[in-house]
């Protein structure tokens, strides 16, 4: 691994982010990344966060048109309430703050505590939970569907809504609509290695793959012998489309998990498009790349988000962040 020691991996990355992006205020000690011009008068502040290891999510999505601030935790570990409170205070212009929370027990508990603390300090806080992962089928006997690729769409589209000056309740409603309109499914070709452990977090022999993985190096629901890109696309599209039943055009995110080359991701995207066309699902926009990663895991996830005219307009609106940038 290209690291110094496991204990400083997150702090080292934050120092590097600060050096690369002077338009962000990076508080390395307190682990908060804030757009430099925050708080922006009249605009709702958007705060997200989660364990590190998913870069560019979330710190790479801080900037005009997307997040106001992000709180990186330790690798695959939710950040603590103190970070979220600090972020909320830094971005609140008086218009309130929206917490964008991926549905993991730790993230939910820490953001809940932070929301209580923020309200004690007079900051109005609303929350949206992202839970788009269709691989978690039995939500009665689990912690519920995980938040994965749809987080990017929620942060982008809610960020555009906030930039237009929409009030907190409206930004929250749009964020919820994006989440409810999105589904994801992930596939791993290899496990990932956390800096603390230094070796793969689960045993996945070459020649096999995991279907229905999360983004924390946790194993999936099912293991199969290696499949072709086309076969994997068929499995992923089927899982997502059967659950989403889209009636509108979709945004497509073909997301790399960290160690899969773009060459393969574009090939996978071609297969995804073939299967979507066969199923008669119209495609509005496409994003291919490493956006919601899982350290050095090989594999990909597919996220579809069905959009109406307003969501598509907000998706197309300008965004200027380290990880996502267009229209500026």
């Amino acid at each position, binding site marked *: 691994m290209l690291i110094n020691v*496991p204990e400083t991996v997150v702090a080292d990355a934050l120092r590097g982010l600060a050096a690369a992006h002077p338009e962000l205020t990076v508080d390395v000690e307190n682990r908060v990344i804030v757009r430099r011009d925050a708080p922006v008068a009249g605009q709702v502040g958007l705060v997200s966060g989660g*364990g590190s290891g998913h870069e560019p999510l979330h710190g790479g999505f801080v900037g005009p048109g997307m997040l106001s601030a992000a709180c990186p*935790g*330790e*690798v*695959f*570990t*939710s*950040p*603590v*309430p*103190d970070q979220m409170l600090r972020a909320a205070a830094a971005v609140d212009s008086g218009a309130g703050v929206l917490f964008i929370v991926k549905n*993991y*027990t*730790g993230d939910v*508990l*820490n953001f809940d*505590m932070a929301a209580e603390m923020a309200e004690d300090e007079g900051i109005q806080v609303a929350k949206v939970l992202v839970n788009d992962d269709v691989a*978690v089928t*039995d939500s009665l*006997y*689990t*912690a519920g569907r*995980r938040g994965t690729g749809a987080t990017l769409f929620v942060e982008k589209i809610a960020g555009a809504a906030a930039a237009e000056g929409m009030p907190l309740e409206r930004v929250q409603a749009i964020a919820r609509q994006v989440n409810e309109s999105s589904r994801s499914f992930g596939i791993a070709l290899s496990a990932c290695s*956390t800096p*603390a*452990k230094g070796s793969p*977090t*689960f045993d996945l022999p070459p020649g096999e793959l995991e279907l229905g993985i*999360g983004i*924390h*190096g*946790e*194993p*999936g*629901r099912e293991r199969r012998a290696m499949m072709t890109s086309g076969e994997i696309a068929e499995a992923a599209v089927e899982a997502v489309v059967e659950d989403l039943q889209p009636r509108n055009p979709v945004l497509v995110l073909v997301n790399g998990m960290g160690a899969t080359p773009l060459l393969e991701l574009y090939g996978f995207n071609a297969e995804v498009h073939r299967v979507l066309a066969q199923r008669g699902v119209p495609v509005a926009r496409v994003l291919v790349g490493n956006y919601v990663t899982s350290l050095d895991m090989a594999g990909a996830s597919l996220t579809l988000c069905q959009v109406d005219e307003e969501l598509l307009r907000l998706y197309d609106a300008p965004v200027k962040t380290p990880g996502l940038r267009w229209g500026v």
Partner: protein
Amino acid sequence: MLDADFFRRWMTATAASVDREAERLTALDSPIGDADHGSNLQRGFTAVVAALEKEAPATPGAVLTLAGRQLISTVGGASGPLYGTLLRRTGKALGDADEVSAEQLAEAFRAGVDAVMTLGGAAPGDKTMIDALVPAVDALGDSFTAARTAAEEGAVATTPLQARKGRASYVGERSIGHQDPGATSSALLIAGLAEAAGE
């Protein structure tokens, strides 16, 4: 009677055993979690010991409240709020008495465990820290040693269970056959109690 020094020893003993067992906790967390339980708790209890030395709280309740707050501020994940709430609620239930009886501690600890169940939504049998804590609370009326044994047995008994809460729930049936890392660290916390009592 148990004074602030007893509670400090409890936290110090737990910190030392979390240090010793960190690699094992992380190894247990690999097949059904995300391989960081040991390092996260290690960071938390190191901060607890440092804060207790610096602020020298004078009552049992203050020791546990401070320890809980430190865990919430340093651990993250689900473990931070859950362990933090366990100690904070127990500390609050102890009030501001200079000394408390073992019975008062047992009663306060039950309030702490109840708060963890409310916060995390887990019940006994879900393959979580609750599976070590509830048997420990039930045995705490007898002795600290009985509570330690009950917690350790409760942790081992999570092995055949299928996880229904937390990250291990995502692997479904494949969580069966692995001892729960949270229940294992909870047993360390209870063992620290017996150690502080010199048992």
